[in-house]
């Protein structure tokens, strides 16, 4: 309902959504926009499904994004893209890391990991951009940079200049990890 851009970062506790959200917020702040970022700490972080909301625009009121409102979803895990896809606007963009992390009910055999996730998503009026961020990050030198690979993919899909993204990464990533993360960003950016 609000003007501006709404981006949802979803994944599994411990996947590095926080750094991605920091970079994203920094990008928005450099555009001199109002920014709100929201997340939930606590119990859900222990390997549960986690969600971070980033909104920016001339003025942001609610820090949350509700179903049907997100311009972009960046899903750090494949099943999570299915869980949160209904938060996208019609015509919105879903960036998905193809990595599969089985939730406990699947591990114990109480539930199945859904098949044909991408076919099901294709039935929606949305754009799906897939990548194997974990593998690409590993090729850059560290699997933990998968989050920044995904930011690279998102940057390519966004209307914001590549330079702004790189500046944000320089602001938010510690110096000793900067080369790795810039490389990871470039890999993601050049995918599409």
């Amino acid at each position, binding site marked *: 309902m609000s003007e501006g851009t709404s981006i949802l970062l979803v994944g599994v506790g411990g996947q590095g959504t926080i750094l991605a959200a920091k970079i994203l917020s920094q990008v928005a702040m450099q555009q001199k926009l109002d920014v709100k970022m929201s997340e939930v700490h606590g119990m859900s972080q222990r390997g549960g499904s986690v969600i971070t909301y980033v909104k920016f625009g001339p003025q*942001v009121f609610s820090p949350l994004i509700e179903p049907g409102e997100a311009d972009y979803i960046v899903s750090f895990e494949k099943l999570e893209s299915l869980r949160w896809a209904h938060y996208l606007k019609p015509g919105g963009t879903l960036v998905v890391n193809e990595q599969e992390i089985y939730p406990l009910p699947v591990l114990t055999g109480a539930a199945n990991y859904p098949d044909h996730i991408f076919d099901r998503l294709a039935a929606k009026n949305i754009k799906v951009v897939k990548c194997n961020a974990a593998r690409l990050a590993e090729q850059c030198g560290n699997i933990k940079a998968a989050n920044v690979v995904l930011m690279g993919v998102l940057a390519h899909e966004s209307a914001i200049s590549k330079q702004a993204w790189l500046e944000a990464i320089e602001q938010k990533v510690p110096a000793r990890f900067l080369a790795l993360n810039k490389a990871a960003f470039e890999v993601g950016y050049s995918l599409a």
Partner: protein
Amino acid sequence: MKRLMSGNEAIARGAYEAGITVATGYPGTPSTEILENIVKYPAIKAQWSPNEKVALEVGLGAAIAGARVIVTMKHVGVNVAADPLMTAAYTGVRGGLVLVSADDPGMHSSQNEQDNRYYGKLAKIPVLEPSDSQEAKDFVALAMEISEQFDTPVILRTTTRIAHSQTLVEEAEPIVTVKKPYEKDARKYVMVPAHARLRHVVVEQRRKDLTAYTETSPVNKIFWQDKKIGIITSGITFQYAREAVPQASILKLALTNPFPAKLIKDFAAQVDTLYVIEELEPFLEEQVKALGLTCKGKDVFSRTGELSVHQIFQVVNADSTQVAGSSITPQAEPQTTAFDAPPRPPVLCPGCPHRAVFYTLKQLKLTVSGDIGCYTLGAQPPLNTIDTTVCMGFSISGLLGMEKAEPDLARKAVAVIGDSTFFHSGMTGLLDVVYNHGTTTTLILDNRITAMTGQQDNPGTGKDLAGTAAPQVDLTALVKAIGVKRVRTLDPFNFKELKEAITEELAALEPSVIIVRRPCVFVDPAPSKPSLQVNSNCSGCKSCMQLGCPALSFDGKANIDHALCNGCGLCSQVCKFKAINCGDDGKQVK
């Protein structure tokens, strides 16, 4: 330049800017990061106390001695601190005192969703409700002013979405404050009946003075728009309301106790339809209605969980189609249907020492009186081991009650409680077991940290909030001093010993404590992970799957995800077929 800060970071910054010099609290989501950020300001003496009652007492003592003070806790922590709070309202303060109550509508990480604004009414003290991080910061300074001007503690009430949302904040320089000197004033601070009767009269006068203050306080603001619809709201719901109904006039209350009756009446008189929009209880609505005003509130908005832009939009949109001449254009709702997806509940981490305990308790088919911490996850499948979880400390005293009702239960039930929770409020329950002839067995799950809230130190860890060395309580000596004669300490990763110890202690007809000691994986990550391998002996019996370890999966045979595996070796221990062993690198399972 503005900075992006969570509500909790902003409150910490606010404490620094307002000249606060003493900060206390007990960790609890969503309040924990306030003190974790405050400790970064060297001018503030900050500490974790063993529980919220102690934290508030230390805070009140500091305020009586003349310091400006902040005390932080989650909503249910205020229940623990309610005793000093109610009488602090009588004694008043000398230096300013603000109590942060971080409420959790929607229960993201809590056992209930009580609305702590009522504590303001009960104690007759002011309540401030910020709507974003800027206000969260600014209201700390305002709380100090109100506290010292009116000689009262002040509640700063946040909710999860304020505490954990980051919004832009303009920082200010810290003000210069001079600590007031301590002076004895027994009639004010010694609450014997003769003095307290006089103080209650003062409290009532203060209530009247605060009511006059709130009527004209600039933090209660009207945003005039179309007057067909008027909304009274506070906190995060202000943000939801102005996004959902941008055309409506809004009275945004920030100082919600005492209640500005005249301001409300004036606002209500100028709008056609009045809504009171607030999460959880009809705290404001009841008072609006007591003025004889007509409004919509909990008849149309949920009293449970969080509100949302969408819910507010739906209600007001549906109504406005029936309001002739309304400026609000009905809009179509977004079409959204969720896909079915298997749930992804939180789980005990790979290598978590609690897993061994719950697996053993399940094998022994015991009734388990549980408590509050990571180990509450032992209630989830496939462990399914916990029978009760109520509040901090309930495990021990609750089990004593079960024994009183059904004596045989003490032979087939245990209490499980974490180290930090034991220090918080388990010790008194254990004293009751000893004193009142209980014979129960208590397992203290000593993982050397306050884990669930994100690894905070406590009296058992040997470090304080600042990370400097602190005296470390001797848990065994403490339990013995309470009067428990049967105390032993063991490693939960030794299944055999754990099982035998529990069986022996259950049989003993006196109180017993087993200290189950192994550090949380975040405190002491395995330095070199033994490489566990599944060999051809695997019969596909799925015994290891009963551990509920995220590093184990099953596709006819067991599989180990080496990226997640911590090498704890529990799966190797539970396997009857010796199908899980160390890798060729020769490293031993710990």
